[in-house]
């Protein structure tokens, strides 16, 4: 016997707990008497904290004032944001000449422009884009930030960087518009898509040469004013130190990690010792070492400036941490990959460079972002040894006569700024992690 009805039974409504607001509250906040107490207590604490912070930082706060005295006159219990606002240029750009600040902004915009293709699905040749950023951007930015007369080397490198930037942007356009790799596009337009490889290469090289020459001649016509490193500061300096730190510690870390896995005893022992020494001491001692001992290591008359000392210290320190990240990445590569590479006759360097590293690096990207966040936070330590990074600037506000003694507000502002930067980056790295590991499961 079968029970068959012609009409569909109407859907039963979802249980109360699943659909109504009250149901949600009941389920997530008041499911038991213990939970209810917990909710009320936590809610109370949150309420007190939020209202306290809001009153101090907003309701009672002073945003426009001539000096700290004027802030006091306005309110004794609120924050004095006016000082922070007055110092915003210092906080972001340091002592950089005010009429030259556009150079830092341009540098930042160029970096974004340069790296943007990495996030665009249709753009081809991402490895080249990435390499271009790492190899050429430092020269362009370095000249843009420090300025002065370009030597021949700088002229060549700056021209190269500009050419790379042009090519990169063109590649982005062809990628977005037609989903084509720039060289393919050029050849197609010239009608040489089917020409032999050698002809194609010659055409492209000739084109590159023409563009390079044009750029080279053009860049001879301008220079930018010299700005000494002592004028670098604020968030800009923090970014420069951590940017150089992360970019240079990556190759350093790779070498150290390979050394640590090497079969050559001497190499391995030295690498292990180096890594372990720097990983076992705090960054601040390395920075003190850099500022007090590096100069003694140098030959007489050879002077390293403070910024270089600090950057070297940061690189040494971070490379050792990076080495461990790389090592973890290498360990994740199955042994079969090495064996397969040997089978097709690749030597050590080619196995590492062509087979192992690309796979390992892909897995390491989230960790690299993670260590960049770590480095960004650690860079605040350079203020202890007297550089005017963002924290150094924030702490200097309290010594400027008009704002004498104003130090809580700058710190809170700094903490907020760091939170925004680091939190968004760590969210992004988590997103990457998910995306990359999803890619593996095909």
């Amino acid at each position, binding site marked *: 016997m079968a029970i068959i009805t012609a009409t569909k039974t109407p859907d039963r409504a979802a249980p109360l707990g699943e659909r109504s607001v009250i149901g949600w509250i009941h389920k997530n906040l008041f499911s038991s008497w213990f939970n209810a107490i917990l909710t009320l207590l936590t809610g109370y604490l949150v309420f007190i904290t939020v209202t306290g912070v809001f009153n101090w930082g907003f309701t009672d706060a002073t945003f426009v004032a001539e000096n700290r005295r004027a802030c006091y006159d306005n309110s004794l219990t609120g924050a004095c944001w006016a000082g922070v606002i007055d110092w915003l240029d210092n906080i972001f750009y340091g002592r950089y000449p005010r009429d030259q600040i556009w150079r830092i902004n341009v540098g930042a915009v160029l970096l974004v422009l340069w790296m943007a293709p990495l996030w665009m699905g249709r753009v081809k040749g991402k490895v080249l884009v990435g390499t271009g950023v790492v190899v050429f951007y430092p020269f362009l930015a370095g000249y843009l930030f420090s300025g002065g007369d370009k030597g021949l080397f700088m002229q060549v490198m700056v021209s190269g960087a500009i050419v790379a930037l042009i090519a990169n942007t063109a590649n982005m356009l062809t990628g977005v518009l037609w989903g084509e790799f720039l060289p393919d596009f050029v050849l197609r337009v010239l009608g040489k898509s089917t020409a032999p490889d050698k002809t194609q290469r010659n055409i492209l090289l000739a084109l590159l040469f023409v563009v390079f020459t044009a750029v080279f001649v053009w860049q001879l016509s301008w220079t930018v004013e010299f700005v000494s490193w002592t004028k670098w500061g604020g968030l800009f300096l923090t970014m420069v130190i951590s940017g150089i730190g992360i970019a240079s510690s990556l190759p350093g870390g790779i070498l150290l990690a390979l050394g640590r896995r090497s079969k050559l005893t001497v190499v391995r022992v030295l690498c292990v010792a180096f890594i372990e020494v720097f990983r076992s001491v705090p960054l601040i001692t390395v920075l003190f070492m850099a500022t007090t001992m590096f100069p*003694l290591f140098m*030959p007489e008359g050879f*002077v390293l400036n403070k910024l270089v000392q600090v950057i070297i210290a940061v690189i040494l320190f971070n490379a050792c941490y990076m080495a461990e990240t790389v090592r973890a990445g290498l360990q994740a590569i199955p042994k079969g990959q090495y064996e397969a590479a040997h089978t097709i006759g690749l030597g050590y360097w080619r196995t590492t460079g062509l087979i192992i590293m690309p796979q390992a690096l892909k897995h390491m990207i989230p960790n690299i972002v993670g260590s960049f966040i770590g480095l960004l936070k650690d860079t605040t330590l350079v203020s202890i*040894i007297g550089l005017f990074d963002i924290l150094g600037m924030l702490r200097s506000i309290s010594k400027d*006569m008009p704002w004498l*003694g104003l130090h809580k507000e700058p710190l809170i502002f700094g903490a907020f700024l760091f939170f925004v930067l680091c939190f968004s980056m760590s969210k992004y790295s988590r997103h990457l992690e998910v995306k990359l590991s999803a890619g593996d499961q095909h």
Partner: protein
Amino acid sequence: MQRRTRIVTFAAMGAVAIMGATVASAQSTLDIVKERGHLRCQVGPPSAGYYNLDSDGNWYGLDVSVCQAVAAAIFGDITKMEIQSVSSQARFTALANGESDMLSRTATHTLTRDTQLGIDFLSPNFYDGQGFTVRRDSGITSALELKGAKVCVTTGTTTELNLTDFSRTNELGISNVTFEDYNVRDDTYLNGGCDAVTGDKSSMAGNIASFPVPAEHMILPETLSKEPLASAVRHGDNQWADIVRWSIFALINAEELGITQANVEEMRGSSKDPNVLRMLGAEGNLNEGLGLKKDWAYNIIKSVGNYGEIYEAYMGHGELGIGIDRAGSLNALWTNGGLMYSPPMR
């Protein structure tokens, strides 16, 4: 075969590169500075009165003016100078290593520092002394009443040593509460975290001015220590030491002779006083011994003013000054009973 050669070549190139960096430094500091085109002058992390940053990123303060004076003496242009701010741990090594040409910061001249650190101190440009700040309502009027008190002090300086000595000498049993940053020190004091603050009287005067209610606090009359704050140069280059020393003396001498930033032009042209004429280079050849141009002292006064003007601007009651009275203090001219005294310039 090829590979080996390449490696050897690289190694050799590396060695040459590093050796090549071994620049002989028999050059005198003056030559190095001239060749570089600017003076590198070392100050410390911002400190009210001495060296501060304003919101446009420019340095100002007493010690900064001294740097500018030396730049003016050499180049006739105070912009040909780069201020380097160095933390207290690295200040002496940075000078000894040649990262900076001179030190113009609140460094107390002591015997140990003069003899063990590879640097030479010059004549002081500010005489400070350590004192105490207390709350007026505490009823304390003398430092000797601070029995068993907690005193806030910044760490790693002679200030801390002096406090300990003072407490031992007078059997006060003072407990030190140490701080790295004097703002935090002052905050702690304001919140009642200690009964008194000790520090250089100069900076404390400025700090009191920044308290919510300055009238509630006072500086006790006792002075614990001698703090001659002097410039310093690298050990071993006497000509350079002379240049810095006499640039500072020129500031003091100018005040004594009544030369100011405003009247220096006129004085050089029309003064009858041979001392003035000699100093400003209108007569004689005082510059030769220093290896500077004839108008070196004129340039100093023209660009930064005399000592009194600088003092008034940053230490005294100028707009950016921290408000310490000069009259009756050690920093008055010797003619007014102070210690500011320049040897004769002749």
